[in-house]
């Protein structure tokens, strides 16, 4: 549907309601009350119908189907409807966990270990992003007084968000590696005698790339919540003799928490579902749950891909719920 058509539809829907200035239709009782109380503007159902339908079909339905398919049976190159927990058993028991053949019940399954590894990378990334992003957001919102400068510096930091993250991951290749810029730099200043090899295809490179890719997701929300703080509060505290540290601890930090929470949730869900960066800068040496899901999809074991996806979803929901428990972000929305 083109823009014009749908607007025309809206207009048609609005037309029969008549002009507000015209004589009110004669009506009695409940009907009259409803007519009288009707708010101006286009009717809500028409406004929300297209987007709602879109979201139900292309967002809700796929997520529900992941859950359903995780109980189906794999036929090797497809799947058939069934209700089996075999896929879940495989998820939990492959290589150890609850495996009666092995004495050691505490060896987690390789899939749980992958999920745990993914989670660990995510937490590390979140922590580093917070440490880097908070001072940046603080500087932009509190230290830069001129609004134009504030906006310009903020946009400059945020711009990479609108460029391809795949390419930004690729851009790390010349930085890392034995002949990479980081090694050259360290050799140049004499910090090391020979190039270090752990920069590329390692946990280090992966975490660093993740931080660089996603740190802007934290800067934005923290900046907005800091910028919203009423400056008179800070002045009042200062007048009453509070030290800068006290002001930060008692006023700025608590008021910026919702922004921190939103930023952390963004990074959490983004990194948990991450898969491309792992291939580029980690060389596919280790799997994340994202790469596991894709591998099983490509090999045609759809139910098992669905199980991994569902477990990832559960882990993510738990994480988001924990963050929301810690911080009430409702007033921010």
């Amino acid at each position, binding site marked *: 549907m083109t823009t014009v058509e749908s607007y025309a539809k809206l207009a048609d829907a609005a037309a029969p309601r008549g002009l507000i200035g015209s004589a009110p239709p004669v009506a009695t009782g409940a009907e009259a009350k409803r007519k009288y109380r009707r708010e*101006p503007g286009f009717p809500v159902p028409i*406004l*929300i119908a297209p987007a709602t339908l879109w979201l139900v079909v292309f967002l809700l339905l796929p997520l529900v189907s*992941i859950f359903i398919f995780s109980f189906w049976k794999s036929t090797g190159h497809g799947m058939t409807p069934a209700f089996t927990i075999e896929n879940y058993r495989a998820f939990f028991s492959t290589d150890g966990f609850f495996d009666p053949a092995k004495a050691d019940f505490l060896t987690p399954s390789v899939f749980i270990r992958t999920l745990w590894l993914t989670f660990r990378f995510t937490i590390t990334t979140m922590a580093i992003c917070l440490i880097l992003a908070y001072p940046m957001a603080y*500087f932009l919102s509190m230290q830069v007084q001129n609004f134009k400068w504030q906006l310009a510096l903020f946009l400059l930091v945020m711009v990479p968000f*609108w*460029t391809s993250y*795949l390419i930004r991951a690729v851009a790390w290749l010349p930085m890392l590696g034995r002949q990479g810029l980081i090694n050259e730099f360290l050799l140049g200043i004499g910090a090391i005698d020979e190039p270090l090899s752990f920069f590329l295809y390692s946990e280090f490179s992966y975490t660093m790339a993740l931080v660089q890719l996603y740190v802007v997701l934290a800067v934005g929300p923290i900046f907005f919540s800091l910028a919203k703080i009423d400056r008179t509060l800070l002045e009042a505290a200062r007048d009453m003799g509070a030290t800068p540290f006290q002001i930060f601890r008692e006023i700025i930090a608590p008021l910026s928490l919702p922004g921190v929470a939103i930023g952390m949730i963004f990074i959490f869900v983004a990194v948990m579902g991450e898969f491309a960066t792992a291939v580029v800068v980690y060389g596919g040496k280790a799997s994340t749950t994202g790469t596991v899901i894709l591998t099983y999809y490509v090999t045609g074991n759809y139910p098992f891909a669905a199980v991994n996806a569902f477990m990832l979803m559960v882990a993510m929901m738990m994480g988001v719920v924990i963050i929301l428990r810690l911080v009430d972000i409702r007033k921010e929305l």
Partner: protein
Amino acid sequence: MARSTAESRRKARIKAGFSVYYAIFFIFVYGPMFAMFTLSFQGPHGGVTFPMRGFSFYWWEKLTGPSAVGDLKASLVRSLILAVIVMIITALFSTMLAMAFRKRFRGSGALFYAVMAGLMVPGTLLSLGLATLLRQVGIPPNWWSSGLAVHVVWTLPFGFLVMMAVFNRFDARLEEAARDMGADEWTVFKEITLPLILPGIVAAGLFGFTLSYDEFARTTLLSGAQNTLPLDINASLTQRVQPTLFALGTASTIFSLLMIGLFIVIYTILYRRSH
């Protein structure tokens, strides 16, 4: 007096410290991109790392030549067409949604979270869910159908938040005045509301454009037989990495930056006109 100069000197020191931090942060965020940019002009015998072995346009020429990574021109065209469609739908949907949210209605909370879920659900999951679903139903995925579907799910929350912010600052009395003077809803919208919110609509659409143009994770399993540009870039990663890839990355980044610049200019012009 003495105290105040000590105070201001302390403040200046703090500011200087933060400025240095900003510079380091800037280098961290942009450094790799500059390295990529420089290396795309690597000599014909140079590799994907420094040092530069000469300066040439060899890899850029290779990029435009027929022997490149895949059919890049075709995938670029597909990405652009898709981005334009996503832009239009995002602008339209987010405007309509934000107009609905000016009033209270039942289920508004659920709808709000549903829109926001598009931002939160990782592309991997969405891609997997819809791809398996389509496979089971027997509909082949295509970049212009299933690809478009998930792109809009991803861009809609951004456009929606922009439009919500626009209507938060909107003076509804202007519309009331027009209604009192006998204008019908459509006239009110066309004559009063639309001109005032146009910069917002443009911003929402442009969000949709750039996000769709660069989207990769959601399209992975859903573009069907024909690739979009990010998918082609990803495919080229599985081959031996050559400076051609850097040329491609640089070209794509410059294009994104130009788009953002253009959008800021358009937005500023529209905003000045409507205020």
